[in-house]
């Protein structure tokens, strides 16, 4: 469990750094810390399926983002300050305190890490191989026992691509 906590701290630091730095390439690389830390956490939690996907997606998004940044600008434009610095700090501190109080109340009711409350999930684990005949339990769940969910997921990706192609098409673009 220590690895997971260390990786979480590293990922939070990377996310803060990505907001904080002004050089955009440094910000993108800090986002890479978050993504690869997530892939390592998947490996430590015993989910190699997700780790493969996460590593490939993170590498591709890093390459595409860096290619986009090199062509445009490298430095973040300074944003105009309407509020003073003190009021921003006070507001963030107030939000953090309220969030902490609520989470202390709520997180006591969460189940212990690694013991899900769904009874259906344990039924999948015990009888998934007998029902589907697939040794990889993840494939058995996402493609047979929960195939409808995967169909919705694929539809979301399909719709996203249609939207992108429609937005970027040549016809109807104003000069």
């Amino acid at each position, binding site marked *: 469990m220590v690895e997971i906590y260390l990786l979480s701290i590293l990922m939070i630091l990377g996310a803060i750094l990505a907001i904080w730095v002004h050089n955009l390439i440094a910000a993108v690389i800090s986002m890479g810390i978050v993504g690869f830390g997530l892939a390592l956490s998947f490996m430590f939690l015993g989910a190699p399926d997700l780790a493969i996907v996460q590593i*490939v997606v993170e590498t591709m998004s890093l390459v*595409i983002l860096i290619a986009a940044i090199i062509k445009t600008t490298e430095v973040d434009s300074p944003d105009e300050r309407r509020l003073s610095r003190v009021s921003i700090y006070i507001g963030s501190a107030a939000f953090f305190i309220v969030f902490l109080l609520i989470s202390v109340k709520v997180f006591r009711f969460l189940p212990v890490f690694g013991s899900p409350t769904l009874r259906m999930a344990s039924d999948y684990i015990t009888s998934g191989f007998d029902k589907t005949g697939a040794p990889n339990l993840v494939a*058995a769940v996402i493609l*047979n026992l929960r195939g409808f969910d*995967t169909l919705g997921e*694929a539809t979301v990706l399909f719709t*996203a691509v249609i939207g992108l*192609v429609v937005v970027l098409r040549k016809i109807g673009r104003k000069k």
Partner: protein
Amino acid sequence: MSEIVKTVSRIFAPLIIVFGIYITLHGHLTPGGGFAGGIVIAGAIILLVLAFGGIKERLERERKTTSRLESSGILLFWLVGSLGLLIGGIFFLNFLGKGIPFTIFSAGIIPICNIAIAAEVGGAISTILLALVLFKKEEE
């Protein structure tokens, strides 16, 4: 890109595609599956496009091909689900029989669904990249 990048990607892109096909076809036996395999194949296509570039008309043709691949992937997935509805009355029914476990032709519809998902995901990611590249080329 430089000659080194072109040579290395010419050697490695076919290997990456073969690895993606392996992950897809063994999705029901080993870790991986349609999603991971499709993304690995799309990664090889992105590597080739970034290394070699290409003229606008050729990239346009490639984008049409990947778009058709994506549409046929989701159509195949939907078809497999509906066939279960037609044959057995349950959506996504495993109507093909389980076969011998731990062999590649087993687990009924799961390998077919893996292939469909790989075509869908690989086509989608390559279409996104090619649409962005074409948008940039048309702006110039």
